[in-house]
């Protein structure tokens, strides 16, 4: 069942001005319910413009977008509904924390949905557990938390709305390796429990490689490819040509291929590389 579907989605910034720029050019794609999709692309490739269409922040210049099978731009009343169905977490979401306590901050979204106090409380406690915030931390001011905790509190605010699809723009950027790992563990836990769609925008191929079911590569406003990680990374040379950084391990494996000692062209994690090398050496 499709969660989000676009048909020749086109978006033009500054139409009828000298600064006219086609940000999305006839993008047709389909993201399934429960799927984890990673979106990569260089700055200006159109990935942020694309995700802003997914919850109706931008209206297509031409083409169609369907969320949960509905063309929400055709019926204005549906627009609000879409914002609850598709939750969007912006880059550096901790800058948007504003309430007196973490609890109240997470409550902001559910309250605006018109949920009862009990239901709001249930959701806050549930998401706090998922993102790893303790009841004591919920009573603190958001500004007393560490950077990583603030980030997780801000993401919890969107998760508490229980959107069918959760979109995150660079959720781990600026965090140290442990902070990054925590964010991805948390998203994994969320997905295992709720089985909702997750769409993740990132510059880090390493992060996306180990996490997504499918990777959407954007280039110059168009879909460059949309496939499983092994299929995408087998085109690593082309990806580097369009300004993307493939994982370090993939570059080393490409170098080994050139040296005539190839193990394959679809290697993108250290564990997989280790497995293949050991298989070769142990003759299994």
């Amino acid at each position, binding site marked *: 069942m499709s969660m989000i579907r676009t048909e020749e989605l086109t978006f033009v910034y500054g139409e009828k001005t000298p600064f006219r720029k086609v940000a999305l050019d006839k993008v047709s794609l389909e993201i399934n319910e429960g799927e984890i999709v990673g979106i990569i692309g260089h700055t200006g490739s159109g990935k942020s413009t694309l995700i802003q269409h997914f919850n109706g922040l931008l209206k297509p210049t031409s083409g169609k977008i369907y969320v949960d099978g509905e063309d929400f731009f055709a019926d204005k009343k549906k627009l609000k509904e879409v914002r609850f169905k598709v939750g969007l977490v912006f880059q550096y979401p901790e800058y948007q924390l504003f309430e007196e306590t973490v609890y109240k901050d997470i409550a902001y979204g559910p309250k605006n949905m018109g949920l009862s106090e009990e239901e709001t409380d249930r959701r806050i406690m549930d998401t706090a557990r998922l993102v790893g915030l303790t009841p004591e931390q919920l009573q603190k001011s958001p500004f007393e938390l560490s950077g990583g905790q603030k980030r997780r509190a801000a993401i919890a605010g969107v998760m508490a709305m229980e959107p069918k699809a959760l979109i995150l723009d660079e959720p781990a950027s600026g965090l140290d*390796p442990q902070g990054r790992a925590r964010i991805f563990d948390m998203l994994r836990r969320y997905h295992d429990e709720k089985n909702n769609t997750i769409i993740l925008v990132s*510059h880090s191929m390493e992060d996306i490689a180990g996490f997504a079911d499918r990777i959407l590569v954007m280039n110059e406003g168009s879909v460059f490819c949309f496939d499983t990680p092994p299929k995408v990374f087998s085109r690593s040379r082309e990806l580097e040509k369009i300004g993307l950084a493939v994982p*370090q*391990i993939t570059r080393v494996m490409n*170098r*080994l291929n050139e040296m005539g000692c190839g193990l394959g062209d679809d290697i993108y994690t250290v564990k997989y590389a*280790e497995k293949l*090398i050991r298989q070769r050496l142990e003759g299994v």
Partner: protein
Amino acid sequence: MEFFLDAENVCFSYVNDAEEPPSRTEVLKDVTLRVKEGEFLAVLGHNGSGKSTLAKCFNAINLPDSGTVTVAGLRTDDEENLIPIRSNAGMVFQNPDNQIVATIVEEDVAFALENMGVEPSEIRRRVDEALRTVGMYEYRMHAPHKLSGGQKQRVAIAGILAMKPKCILLDEPTAMLDPKGRDEVMSTIKMLNREQGVTIVLITHYMEEAAQADRIVVIDGGETLLDGTPKSIFSQVETMKNIGLDVPQVTELCYRLKKAGYDLPGDIITEEECAQALFELLTKRGE
């Protein structure tokens, strides 16, 4: 004078006056760190480890509670030294949008020089030179907000270069950039160090960036935990992982294979070294 940057037994706490009684958070606990002129030092540590606090001690934004910091032999706690220290040790921050003040690139680069009262003809010369050095001369009349993140960071670096500093401190300058922007900034930093002998202190979360430095210092819990060459630091895979840091993927792969009993060097940190070592391992077997 032997060391360009010299922190001796530095302790530093942040004081929260809003609370009664005021609470203190101890961030640096007796840190001693010396950096030679012309050295390229990378500082690693997880969020909250104290690495940014330490960097701010080196250009007198933070003054230590105890211990001393000297820059080019000048003590940071003497207010007379403030201007020479800041023009000798410039700082580049994480967010490119927070450090650009003017509406035209070349005016931004000239900002510090104007404040220092440099002659207009000399300002012109130094601004042009700094912009050429970072490869942004063609953009000198552009509006900064229309530049990419990597370009903005290079403009920020040019603003510091124009002061002709002996040292640049960079606090996660690539954290908000895409891979292309990161490459641009890293090549600029390396070029300044190798070709112009500028002392570099680079704070980063990217292990692959740290691997390109002459020396790495790992800060943990406000103390210097490790200090050595990239090879000697990254070969301590377990220690690095235990404190929440990482090692480059190539180091991790070789470490895992070595642990499984294969004969590989334990100090591989570059892609080429890794490819060579794996090539030898895989072909030796076939002979």
